[in-house]
């Protein structure tokens, strides 16, 4: 099997789908000749031509709107928004149009648009290059929301997204584009070649949408995470010395309630982790779901460890970031309860 980082895995997914399906087009700012500011579309225009891999004007609203029109006319657009922080000019097109087109036309029209966008902090991007706005999109009915944590999942989930018939907002945690990150910025960078998730088949395969993955089985407490935080969570488990079951949520909408709740009913304890802000964050949905399904099995209040409710500050990235120590403290605290 080949070794790939997440950038290469995503590139491979698009390459394969451009090859297999003439309806697939890729569009976005700097994605064509240059290959994307994070190199995710590197070489795709050269290989598949400038009519299928398009450099667009700087207009996120225009990119998504045009993608919707293309989708309505039979194409499968994969649009890149250069940073998730730049997605808001397209918000009306996503919320009012893309998400609801199938519903409002009783299925007569739909647009299978994929919006890929890098998210998350840890690269000193300040408040306009670090956001994790997934919770804003999971609140919208009619779009699927995905965030992988490994190159293997990234490729398989992106292929599934492109093959599907519904719009998907596909968040790419940019801090782990080049290697897993356990939350300690002082440690040397680890490449994906040192991680099992960096083993990626060169050919076509899928990872199902709507399916979470147990990345570390355990019996004491269930730790729910996604994206970069899956790796940070595992570091926290080692730090806390508890036998935690770590679950990578992977697809935030639709949510694999069964996998999550089976685990929490077994362990009786749960900690939810995300990098996004806490108030009305996606973690609130996870906590509510677990509470509804597992209340009579719970032995401690469910805890959330998240970014603080402030914009992402440039100077205080690591004070802001919900690192392993904070997660470990939460794990210990739920273990000590009752």
């Amino acid at each position: 099997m080949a070794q790939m980082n997440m950038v290469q895995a995503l590139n491979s997914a698009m390459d394969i789908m451009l090859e297999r399906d003439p309806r697939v087009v890729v569009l976005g700012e700097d994605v064509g000749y240059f290959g994307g500011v994070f190199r995710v579309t590197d070489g795709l225009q050269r290989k598949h031509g400038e009519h299928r891999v398009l450099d667009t004007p700087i207009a996120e609203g225009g990119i998504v709107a045009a993608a919707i029109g293309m989708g309505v006319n039979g194409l499968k657009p994969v649009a890149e928004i250069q940073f998730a922080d730049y997605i808001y000019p397209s918000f009306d097109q996503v919320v009012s149009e893309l998400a609801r087109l199938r519903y409002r036309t009783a299925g007569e029209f739909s647009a299978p648009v994929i919006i890929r966008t890098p998210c998350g902090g840890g690269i000193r991007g300040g408040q306009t290059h670090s956001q994790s706005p997934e919770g804003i999109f999971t609140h919208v009915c009619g779009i699927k929301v995905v965030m992988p944590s490994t190159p293997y999942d990234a490729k398989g989930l992106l292929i599934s997204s492109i093959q599907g018939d519904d719009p998907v907002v596909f968040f790419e945690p940019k801090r782990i584009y080049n290697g897993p990150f356990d939350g300690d910025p002082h440690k040397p960078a680890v490449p994906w070649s040192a991680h099992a998730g960096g083993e990626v088949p060169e050919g076509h395969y899928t990872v199902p949408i709507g399916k979470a993955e147990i990345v570390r089985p355990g019996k004491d407490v269930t730790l729910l995470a996604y994206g970069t935080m899956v790796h940070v969570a595992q570091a926290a488990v080692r730090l806390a010395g508890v036998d935690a079951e770590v679950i990578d949520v992977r697809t935030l909408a639709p949510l694999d309630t069964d996998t999550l709740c089976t685990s929490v009913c077994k362990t009786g304890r749960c900690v939810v982790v995300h990098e996004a802000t806490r108030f009305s964050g996606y973690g609130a949905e996870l906590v509510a779901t677990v509470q509804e399904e597992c209340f009579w099995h719970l032995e401690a209040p469910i805890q959330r460890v998240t970014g603080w409710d402030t914009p992402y500050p440039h100077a205080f990235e690591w004070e802001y970031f919900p690192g392993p120590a904070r997660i470990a403290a939460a794990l210990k605290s739920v273990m000590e309860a009752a």
Partner: protein
Amino acid sequence: MTPRSRLHIPFPPARPGDKPDFSYVQISPAGAVERPESKASVREIESLATQMVRVLGDDGKAVGPWNPRLEPEDLQVGLRHMLLTRLFDDRMQRMQRQGRMSFYMKSTGEEAVAVAAGMALLPGDMLFPSYRVQGLQVVRGRSLVDLMCQCLSNTRDMCKGRQMPVMYHWGSGNIFSISGNLATQFPQAVGWAMAAAIKGEDRIAATWIGEGSSAEADFHHALTFAQVYRAPVILNVVNNQWAISTFQGIAGGEVQTFANRGPGYGMPGIRVDGNDFLAVYAVTQWAAERARQSGGPTLIEHVTYRAAAHSTSDDPSRYRPKEEWKAWPLGDPIDRLKQHLIELGEWSEERHAALEKELEAQVTASWKEAASYGTLTEGPTLDPATMFDDVYKEMPPHLARQREELLKLRTQGIGAANAQHDGARPTQPMAKEG
């Protein structure tokens, strides 16, 4: 063959390895464009949007009706501001390369766009900048130490460590906050100008946007609102040919000029040689005069060239010829003003070298002071608990609780990893070009 539609894919005339080709840039001779009255009706002056206002000829002489006839002392001040801007940029780029700060964006080659426009406006006029017009700060007399401290996110940072480098603001200097998101300032400037008129003030607003980000809807919001209400605002499009890797054709500049969008909305559009200090000064002065007389907005396209990389995270050798700037037909704004002053007998190579030395020393001294307030790698750091300030005017209870939690964690040694010393190096592009 049945005819069928096929998309036109804009492609720049030259890519890496190709010979630079700027034959697409239509240039009027210096002095050739007429200067109308500032109250002229849009229909009479539509040609200003397609010609190019130029004052400085290749011989260094100032010619034609747009010559603002500035005193030599003013020209020397302009030269000083442009040179200081360039030396400041160069130093900050070097400091980023040394790991002392996280990111930087130079304005090399575009200094006249900011400096000449800034000088043609009044101190009370409100400026809504993009991220590549730092010359405005220099014109308004902002201390370099303040700018550097912002870039360093240090203990004297005006943003309290909350913004990436170059995202300055200056309330008392009438310069608005720079956003990392593009084009947002353009319609905001219009609203500010509307308020000035509503309040009966004679202050005007001016704003800058890149040709790339003129594709954003906010550009069109700005033009619509500005023209509907004849707001006293100057709307500047800085066409520096490149938006990271995409050339100005991708932004819609292949067939029509960006200035020509002005008449489309009913306002004057002026296309100006953005590397000609005198021309930029003159058209700004014209637009300001019009705005102050209730004549409404003007759209100015500054034709210039982004000589530097988009940012310290960018590598332009991947997408454009390395030597492109040397082939840029409108030259270097600093060299051109310098030659003009020499031609006037008001400057010399010796004085220029002395000025450069003086300004270098100023930059060095400023850096030394700024660094004493903290850099990425050394010195004092801000208190992380301040990150909870200013989210709201009064801190709500949930933020107060989170602040307490952070402080408690820090006393336990948790989360104490100090970002000022993490040494994490971003190697990826972190902002896009307008």
